Every structure is written in C-alpha cells, then in structure tokens.
C-alpha cells in the first residue's frame, strides 16, 4: 500500500518567517503535486513536479522533488497571512491505464500577522 507522510502536521509562525514542510514516502511516484486548501473550499493545485531533483518556484514558494522521486519539500519565504491553509501533497503512480493519485494527511499552516 502506498502511503504519503507529511510533516509537520501543524505549524504556526509569525508573518515574515520562513518555513519548510515535507512530504515523504517509501514508494516511488511518477509525479507529485502540492495543493492548498482553505477552510470551506476544495484543494487548489499549486504545482506538479515530475523529474527527480526538479525545483519549481512560484513567487515565494519553492518546491523540490527528491532525486529518487519518493519525497518532496515546500519552502515558503517571508510567509504572509494569505499563505494560511492546509497544504496537501499528492503522489501519482501509474497503474495499467490511469494514474492513481493518493494524498498525504496535510500540513496545517497558520501565519500570524
């Protein structure tokens, strides 16, 4: 059974601080996605990483896919209150004819003004 773990589970920081959240698995994934979910809403995709070692930047957010495609990290620079939300990583593994996407348990981030 493929599982994704995320750490930390909860994170509360002051505005302007930097932070990193992690997504780990013992399984290899063909791609990994990061989503942000705000209260009362569905998850919204932030990025997809496909190649081992790949680094993608989205403004103050930096995403990295591990060389072995088993783990990923999300680094936020100078966090702002608008970054508050639940960050979910999702790994896709190729089945016979479709991708099966599984989600990690999420990191709940609170950025205090």
């Amino acid at each position, binding site marked *: 059974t493929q599982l994704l773990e995320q750490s930390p589970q909860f994170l509360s920081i002051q505005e302007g601080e930097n932070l990193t959240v992690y997504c780990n698995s013992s399984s290899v994934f*063909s*791609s990994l*996605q990061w*989503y942000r*979910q705000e209260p*009362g*809403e*569905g*998850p*919204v*995709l932030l990025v*997809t990483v*496909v190649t081992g070692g790949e680094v993608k930047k989205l403004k103050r957010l930096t995403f990295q896919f591990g060389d072995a495609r088993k783990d990923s990290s999300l680094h936020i620079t100078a966090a702002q209150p608008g970054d508050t939300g*639940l960050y*979910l990583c*999702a790994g*896709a593994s*190729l089945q016979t*004819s*479709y*991708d*099966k*996407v*599984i*989600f990690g*348990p*999420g990191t*709940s981030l609170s950025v205090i003004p």
Partner: protein
Amino acid sequence: DTAVSQTPKYLVTQMGNDKSIKCEQNLGHDTMYWYKQDSKKFLKIMFSYNNKELIINETVPNRFSPKSPDKAHLNLHINSLELGDSAVYFCASSQALDTATNEKLFFGSGTQLSVL
C-alpha cells in the same frame, strides 16, 4: 463561472436515510472523481469515472453508488446512512486519466455531510 459545482454545501440527516450529492463540471473534462475527507483532513479517493465509465472503485461500501448520466455530471447516492459516513465529500475533475504531467485535479467546494 464555477468550474466544478456540487450541491448541497451542507447536508444534515438521520441514520438510515438515503441521500444524494450532485456534481457538475463545465470544463469539458473527461474524468470525474469523488473524494472523502475525514475529520483529520485526510483526503481519500472513492470513485473515478472516465467518459461515464467507472475506472476506480476504492473498496467503498455498496451503499455508495455513483451515477454518471453524462461526462459533465457525477452524482453520489448513499443508502442507509451511517454515523461513520459523516465527512466532507469532494467532487473533482481532470482532463484525462493521466495526471502525471500537466493535468490537474479541479475540486468542488465540498459537501459537509453530518449523520445524526
């Protein structure tokens, strides 16, 4: 324009009742999904349909029956509701079955189901 819309937003019902949640997407996508998010925010896939054909059924009890009248709609009917069914149910869609590269999941805003 809402890309993936599901109704109702909130559903409160008694144990043993039968209820339905509707989902529609106006993105022209071929694939639709139902996910369940429990109280710990863990998001787990239940079903996936591609062009009205069932692709994924993740050992969900038979009391849950998805229905796809066309590729823009995927409704979820639940019979004999149980306390453990309380959760937030999300509908989602993607262009194709291959989410590995540049496809992504578009989620609805969720239906919070409370079984009393």
